[in-house]
C-alpha cells in the first residue's frame, strides 16, 4: 500500500472514532473541563506550526523563498475577510509570481 493510502485510511478511521466518542460512547456523561480545554487548544497550536513549516522549512533547513509572498498574500486576504478559496488562490498566485521573477 502506498503512503498516501495508508494515511487516508488511518486518518479516516481515527477521525470516525474521535467524532463518535460523544454521540456513541459517553452519551450522558461529561469529561473534565480541564481536559476539554486542553483538547480544544491543540488545533491553534498545530495550525500555527503548519504555517511556519509550510512557509520556512525545506527539509531540515530554514529558507526564505517565494512562499513568503504566498503567506503574506494570505494574511492580507484573511485581514480583508476574504473567503477560503480566494486566500488559496492569492497565496498560489503570489508565490508563483515571485518565483517567476526570480
Amino acid at each position, binding site marked *: 500500500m502506498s*503512503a*498516501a493510502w*495508508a*494515511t*487516508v485510511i*488511518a*486518518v479516516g478511521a*481515527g*477521525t*470516525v472514532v*474521535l*467524532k*463518535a*466518542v*460523544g*454521540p*456513541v460512547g*459517553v*452519551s450522558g456523561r461529561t469529561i473534565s473541563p*480541564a481536559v*476539554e*480545554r486542553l*483538547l480544544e*487548544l*491543540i*488545533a*491553534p*497550536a*498545530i*495550525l*500555527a*506550526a*503548519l*504555517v*511556519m*513549516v*509550510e512557509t520556512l*522549512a525545506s527539509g*531540515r*533547513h*530554514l529558507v526564505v523563498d*517565494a*512562499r513568503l509572498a*504566498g*503567506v503574506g498574500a*494570505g*494574511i492580507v486576504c*484573511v485581514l480583508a475577510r476574504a*473567503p*477560503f*478559496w480566494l*486566500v*488559496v*488562490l492569492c*497565496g*498560489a498566485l*503570489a*508565490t*508563483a509570481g515571485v*518565483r517567476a521573477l526570480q
Partner: protein
Amino acid sequence: MAALGASFGVLARTAHLDALAAIVMSATTFAGSSQVAAVSVLGAGGGIAAAVAAALLLNARYAPIGISVAQTFRGSVARRLAQSQLVVDESWALSGGNRRVLLGVGTTLWFAWVGGTAVGAFAGQAIGDTGKFGLDGAFAALFVALLATQLTSRARLAVAAGGAAIAALLIPFTPPGVPIIAATGAVVLGWRRA
C-alpha cells in the same frame, strides 16, 4: 465548503494522493484542516506516522465537541455512529444543539466537501509542476486562514504564538513532521488562562 474542498483536492496532489484517494479521504474523514495537514506533512517528507498524528491531534477537538452535543443524538448505536460523522465545526456552531439543524447542515456540507474535492482533485491532475503554480505557497496561505478561525480568545492566541515558535526552532534539528507534533506542547501556555 465546496471551494475549500476543491483547494484540498488540488493540494492533495503535492502529497501524491490520486483523485480517488483524495475523494475517499474527504468522504471518510470530513474534517478540512486535518486533511490539509496530513497532505502537507506527507508532501514535506514527514512520513505516514507524523502525517496521521498531526491530523488526529487536529481532530482531537471533536471528542469534546461530540460530547457537548451527545444528548441530542437518538436511536441505535449504528444510527448514532453514522450521524456523529456529520459533526464538523460549522454544523456544530450553526446548530446550537438542535439535532435537525446539525444533521441538515452537516449533510449539505458533506456533499459540498466531497463534490468540491472531486472537482479540485481532477483539476489538480492536470497541473504538471506544482511549484510553478505556487501550490506550496497556497498551503501556507490556507493554514493562515484556518488558523484565523481558531483565534477566538487570548489563550488561543498565546498557544498559536507558542506553537509557531516551537515549530520554527525545531525545523533545523528534527526530521520533517516532528516540529508540528511538538508544537502541541504549546497548549500549556493557554491552559491556565481563563
